[in-house]
């Protein structure tokens, strides 16, 4: 997300709008990426994002292959470069990569010739998630500029939070982060966010409430004393949501831990929760990204002598 200008973000969102319409047709398929190969290379399991990218590619006519690489804790990195070189020899046009290490996608992109899309790297970024969140908000509220967005929960380990903060700030929204200090990265205020430790004060007058998954699999120590205590202070329930604007939207990147960071009652409220819409927008945004990147792909065949 870092480095994208407002104009570029708007262009992606506008294009994604077209794909939302297309995806609601009976014939959802285009031939824009016909003959192109897209490989979804996932070093970390993710059903949701992988399926979303797979559908996006297929609807644009690409041949999509999914690769899940089991990662042992020690030899992870070796697998990364080796796999990249091997795949590169098969001339894929697009690589969609998710990796548990920050910066791994960046490293891999320097070793391959085709386009590389970051589908989430460590605690660093998850750009398409931020884009689909922005599209969801823009469709519901008509704008991003001037909105107050509260991002709540495990900010420290969240690539979704980082990408969203960068995008929303770029687009002129006010961003707050709400979490206990143990779940906030050091110097997070340098990203241009208001820091709150109390849900009620943080949610006051918010247009958007973005909940994050408490990423228990990333936690190597005790960041919070118990799930019970966490839900008591930081779980989103009707009571806390009442502090936000009456029409405030509730978002969550999924998968949700119902009863840990969000009350099922709120998550399933069709008037407030746009969580399912986020999933729909995900496919459209990823089609837009694939579309835009494919315009830069070479149209020349690969030279024989290589």
């Amino acid at each position, binding site marked *: 997300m870092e480095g994208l200008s407002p104009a570029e973000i708007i262009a992606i969102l506008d294009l994604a709008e077209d794909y939302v319409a297309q995806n609601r047709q009976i014939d959802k398929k285009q031939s824009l990426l016909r003959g192109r190969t897209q490989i979804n290379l996932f070093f970390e399991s993710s059903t949701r994002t992988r399926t979303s990218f797979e559908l996006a590619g297929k609807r644009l006519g690409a041949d999509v292959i999914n690769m899940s690489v089991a990662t042992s804790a020690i030899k992870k*990195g070796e697998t990364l470069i080796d796999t990249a070189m091997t795949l590169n020899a098969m001339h894929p046009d697009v690589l969609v990569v998710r990796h548990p290490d920050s*910066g791994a996608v960046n*490293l891999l992109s320097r070793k391959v010739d085709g386009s590389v899309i970051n589908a989430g790297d*460590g605690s*660093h*970024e998850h750009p398409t998630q931020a884009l689909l969140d922005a599209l969801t908000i823009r469709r519901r509220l008509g704008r991003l500029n001037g909105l107050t967005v509260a991002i709540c929960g495990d900010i420290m380990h969240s690539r979704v939070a*980082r990408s969203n903060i960068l995008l929303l700030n770029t687009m002129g929204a006010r961003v707050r982060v709400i979490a206990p200090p143990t779940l906030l*990265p050091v*110097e997070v205020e340098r*990203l241009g966010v208001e820091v709150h430790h109390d849900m009620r004060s943080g949610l006051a007058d918010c247009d958007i409430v973005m909940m994050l998954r408490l990423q228990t699999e990333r936690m190597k120590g005790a960041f919070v004393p118990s799930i019970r205590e966490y839900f008591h202070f930081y779980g989103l329930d009707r009571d806390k949501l009442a502090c936000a604007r009456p029409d405030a939207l509730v978002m969550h990147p999924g998968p949700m831990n119902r009863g840990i960071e969000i009350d099922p009652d709120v998550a399933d409220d069709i008037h407030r929760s746009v969580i399912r819409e986020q999933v729909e927008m995900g496919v459209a945004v990823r089609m837009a990204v694939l579309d835009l990147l494919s315009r830069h792909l070479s149209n020349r065949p690969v030279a024989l002598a290589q």
Partner: protein
Amino acid sequence: MSGRRVAYLNARLLDPASGLDTPGGLLTEGGLIADLGPELAGADLADDIETVDCGGRVLCPGLIDMRVFSGEPGAEHKETLASLGQAAAAGGITTAVTMPNTEPVIDNVALVEYVARRARETAPVRILPMAAISQGLDGRAMTELGLMAEAGAVAFSDGTRAVADALVMRRVLSYASTFGLLVVQYPEEPALARDGVMNESEVAMRLGLPGIPACAETVMVERDIRLVELTGGRYHAALVSTGAAVGALRAAKADGLPVSAAAAPQNFALNETAVGDYRTFAKTDPPLRGEDDRRALVAGLADGTVDVICSSHTPEDAESKRLPFEQAASGIIGLETLLPLALELYHNGHLGLSALLATMTINPARHLGLPTGRLTAGAPADLLLFDPDLPWRIDEDGFRSKSKNSPFDGRPVQGRVWRTVVDGACVHDRTGEA
């Protein structure tokens, strides 16, 4: 005494130990310095004396590097004692102190003797082993400090690991004081540093990398200073990188405690922004810090609080570095860049030339109890002849080290080694090189 006699004439003699800084000459006989002074000139020399025209360059004691990691034994593909010795000679280093973090760990008398013997047989410079404080670097059971010292270990350290247990550290400092041994601590509280891979800061936050807070260093240095106060043991902080640690050491020195500290060029020549876009060559321990800490470290070097500069030479092969940042090995090679990078402090006006050279000659010699590191008649003829101003660009292709992991490749620097002499014999000579 007999032996080959060499006269180094037309030199700028610089000896930080005595404060000598004068044009003159120096005569070696066999492995020792026989005579030196401004009067020593070509005319009155006997015919059998070989002469070297120094061309007005600086002739000083050979450098002593207190922190060098060797691949041998165990990781000879990264560095052998032979390649380490050649790199050291090219860098003007006449004594390299190797750390015990090898495979196996240097934690018993036989291994200390093994390293010393292999070094004598294969390396052109002096290589003196530092031995482990704890068996297998486990931080618990003390090694045979006294016996290993008799076998040639010049100091004791767990290298890249801190002795974290306060009681173990207390006993080690206390026991080591019996023999006046130097305890070299890597000052980083492991619990606070655990998952960290770079300085904890805005840069780390933006990159999504787990950080090592500056206080991981301060906590350990401050604790150790209290233990030194309690035991009277001689303590050396292997590497410091933060302003707070420098401040704590400054106060301890003012109180007269037997503490000293070293810094590596990467920590005073670079800051955390060198990590940039996940550059693994900039991953090192302690991590490159923020600009405020870097400046405070320079101030600590300038006022003598940090009294040693060492390379912390850590050879890593390409495979260990071409990984995602969190997985990549930590460390930077430094034998061949120690002098020019240290000279930046002189060229930038932070330290005088003599004070700067003291951090790499007489100061480590005193801490380690070595007879080298000074220009005195009767001392070993370990010498460095260098041009302090000559500009050049660091080029990894020129490195003698088997590993090339340096973030300084391409950096313009000033100051170049001209000749390195160990025991009166030339081990590196730039004459004839491009």
